[in-house]
């Protein structure tokens, strides 16, 4: 029997980026707010100090900051004809557990999506005609122009290092010429550039592209954000993604919001508290709060006026399905919303062996790199190419952590003296060009509940059915070919193009950019939330994060997650709190 706790105004399910942002804004608006986090408290000086943060085995390979599949995992299959089997250990993506969520162990690559990304279906149909029937892509119901002030707000919260390419419509030299217009430049200048990305930038320019320093949540200088929280200059230690920053140099909830939020009298964080159910009243139109379980197995009911799902996408969708909220998606009929339009990222790379030029790959930061956006979104004419959308190409100096990074030329044996010699010869002198492609929603890709496998609490696991389709394969091949063009212009000794081939696999790490399952939009038949992230059916329930992406763009998701969250908060503060109810009338 659950113990019923005193009601609060706001309950946050999960305490990563969006939970911290919402907690900060709504406590400032005077609301009593409780955050429930299944993992533990984590902070820079106690949990990832510089005296032990640079430990590749512990954090990357033994997953110290990640979700443990023994506690919670999901099952996976490539298509509906197969039997889904559990991810017994993590691989392709790395959800977090604990305060700060994946905002602790991300790289900090912080992009804006293109204006055309938000009107993906209508834009592409208008320019190229009807799309494939299986492609269930849609417009977001929100525009770039509406989001711009909130991209800005998130970038200033984080102290993003970068260079504007488009200020109020005026092109700026040195920035990304394809980006949507910005009201002002980034809060911090670009990071100092390492050699490999610099060579890539020169070759990209020589081949007719427009390179720019990638936007980074790694501080190029000391920075105090609008909340008054100070971040330190990045030291280029090369331990960002999969690691916590020991130096307060990477934006995370801990380094940008929590020092302020944790002091507020009307805020309370409960760690080791896992939400197992969203509770509904008998009408099915109102959430009454959530039920959660602590590590001793004690069950609590937390009533709240507003419920925000702020966990990782996979958990948000899982919780909706377990709570019976919304119609689960059925791929046979195409009906239903929850679990629909699950998408991901399609990546490939080209290793560029430079032979005699020493690059020092270990002098790195998570978002230290030079990119080009010439082949992202609809920045290029797709006529005759057989696909829509695209991705960026970038040469990053994120790290030289040697278990993960020891590039060897194509056809090198995987072990023995030749392998050892190849590692020794190429470690310091190899650059890698990455392609980072969009994934379009497809009617065969979705999330639902597994009929067989159960988690430690006896609940059905989430089941993922996903594969890359023609659009992804053609796009990724095209992007990889363009990366080869630039690689050759770097005048290498040799290159190794690693095209993305075959079925999607959960084995190798790719990206933690899972998206969708409770899409946003302007039609309740094809979206779970409206443009303000508010459930159409349950107006006091909000869903945040990449869970609401109708399909994925060719960028890392965090910048857009931040913008959507602040955009929704603005409407909640201005409209909803005065008059709780649907923010969009049909």
């Amino acid at each position: 029997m659950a113990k019923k706790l005193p009601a609060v105004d706001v309950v946050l399910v999960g305490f990563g980026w969006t939970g911290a942002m919402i907690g900060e804004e709504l406590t400032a608006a005077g609301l009593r707010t409780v955050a429930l986090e299944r993992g533990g408290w984590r902070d820079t000086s106690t949990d990832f100090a510089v005296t032990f943060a640079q430990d590749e085995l512990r954090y990357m390979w033994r997953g110290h900051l990640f979700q443990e599949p023994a506690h919670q995992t999901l099952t996976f299959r490539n298509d509906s004809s197969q039997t889904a089997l559990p991810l017994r250990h993590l691989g392709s993506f790395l959800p977090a557990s604990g305060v700060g969520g994946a905002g602790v162990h991300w790289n900090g690559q912080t992009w804006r999506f293109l204006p055309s990304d938000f009107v993906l279906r209508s834009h592409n149909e208008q320019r190229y005609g009807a799309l494939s029937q299986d492609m269930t892509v849609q417009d977001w119901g929100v525009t770039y122009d509406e989001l711009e002030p909130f991209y800005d707000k998130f970038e200033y919260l984080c102290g993003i290092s970068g260079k504007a390419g488009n200020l109020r419509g005026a092109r700026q030299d040195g920035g990304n010429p394809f980006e949507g217009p910005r009201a002002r430049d980034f809060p911090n200048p670009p990071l100092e550039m390492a050699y490999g990305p610099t060579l890539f930038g020169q070759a990209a320019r020589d081949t007719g592209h427009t390179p720019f320093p990638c936007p980074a949540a790694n501080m190029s200088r000391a920075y105090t954000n609008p909340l008054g929280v100070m971040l330190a200059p990045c030291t280029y230690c090369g331990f960002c993604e999969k690691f916590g920053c020991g130096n307060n140099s990477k934006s995370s909830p801990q380094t940008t919001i929590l020092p302020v939020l944790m002091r507020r009298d009307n805020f309370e964080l409960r760690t080791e508290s896992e939400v197992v159910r969203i509770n509904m009243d008998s009408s099915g139109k109102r959430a009454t709060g959530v039920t959660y379980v602590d590590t001793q197995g004690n069950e609590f009911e937390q009533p709240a006026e507003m419920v925000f799902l702020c966990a990782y996408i996979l958990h948000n969708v899982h919780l909706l399905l377990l709570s019976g909220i919304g119609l689960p998606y059925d791929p046979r009929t195409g009906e239903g919303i929850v679990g629909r339009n699950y998408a991901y990222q399609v990546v490939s790379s080209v290793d560029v062996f430079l032979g005699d030029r020493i690059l020092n790959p270990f002098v790195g930061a998570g978002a230290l790199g030079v990119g080009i956006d010439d082949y992202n979104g609809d920045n290029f004419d797709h006529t005759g190419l057989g696909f829509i959308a695209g991705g960026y190409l970038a040469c990053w100096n994120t790290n030289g952590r040697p278990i993960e990074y020891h590039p060897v030329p194509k056809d090198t044996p995987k072990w023995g003296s030749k392998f050892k010699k190849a590692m020794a010869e190429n470690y310091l002198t190899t650059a890698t060009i990455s392609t980072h492609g969009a994934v379009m929603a497809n009617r065969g890709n979705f999330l639902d509940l597994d009929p067989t496998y159960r988690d430690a609490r006896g609940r059905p696991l989430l089941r993922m059915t996903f594969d890359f389709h023609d659009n992804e394969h053609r796009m990724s091949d095209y992007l990889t070919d363009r990366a080869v063009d630039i690689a050759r212009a770097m005048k290498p000794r040799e290159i190794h193009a690693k095209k993305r081939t075959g079925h999607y696999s959960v084995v190798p790490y790719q990206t933690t950019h899972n998206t969708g399952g409770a899409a946003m939009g302007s039609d309740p038949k094809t979206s779970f939330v409206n443009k303000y992230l508010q459930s159409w059916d349950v107006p006091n329930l909000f869903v945040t994060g990449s869970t609401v992406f109708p399909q994925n763009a060719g960028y890392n998701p965090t910048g857009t997650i931040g913008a959507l969250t602040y955009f929704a908060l603005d409407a909640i503060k201005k409209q909803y709190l005065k008059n709780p109810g649907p923010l969009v009338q049909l």
Partner: protein
Amino acid sequence: MPDTLQRRAVLLAGVSLLAVNAVTRSQARTIAGGVPWTPGAGDAPTAEGSLKFFTPDEAAFIDAAVARLIPADDLGPGAKEAGVTTFLDRQLAGPYGHAETWYMGGPWHDGTRSQGYQSRLTPAALYRTAIKAIDDHCRQAFGGKTFSTLSPDQQDSVLTDLEKGKFKIEGIGPHAVEIEGAKADSFFSVLLQNTLEGFFSDPIYGGNRDMIGWKLIGFPGAHYDYRPYVGQHGKKLPIEPVGLRGRPGWMPNQS
């Protein structure tokens, strides 16, 4: 050489786990007159001491195998000299060996390649099972010799067959029989991955002794501030490698 290497049918998960516990041993020892490690060597108390997981025969197998995967040669010491056997021993005796964080609930199916590891064996049980099976195979194929007593060429041919999936180790999971080569869950690819971990991880874990792996490629280790070096394009940096516990120059030498 037989295509199929027979393994006695005792390898249900429960049996294997019991076997792991039954065979694991830690030998008694006395420490007196100083710390049980060499000052100035830049490595680890954890690198010393008796085996915690492997039997002596298993350790001999691992010594021999990792010495072929990353050999000592004219470029310098290899995985055996770097202490990869000690690293693996500690890893398999600990949470990794017991798959403590893995989802190990049934039912069990072979699955497709893209579904990843679907064996019911923990890493510890996988090693124990595979080493015995490979040694049984070697005895049969090489006149009673175990893997560690074969010539390097013979060892390479056994490892190559394992890598290419040319023979099957029953009971360690379905993909070991596939012919395309190393799979995510085949013993060979797990051994190779763990060997790289032991060769390149921080010396606190017992491998990468004296930072042998890092010195081979030029990785400076656990530095946390490279600001002076970002703009030094094309230059080899004059940085000695350092581990989480420091480096030899930071420790007093024996008088």
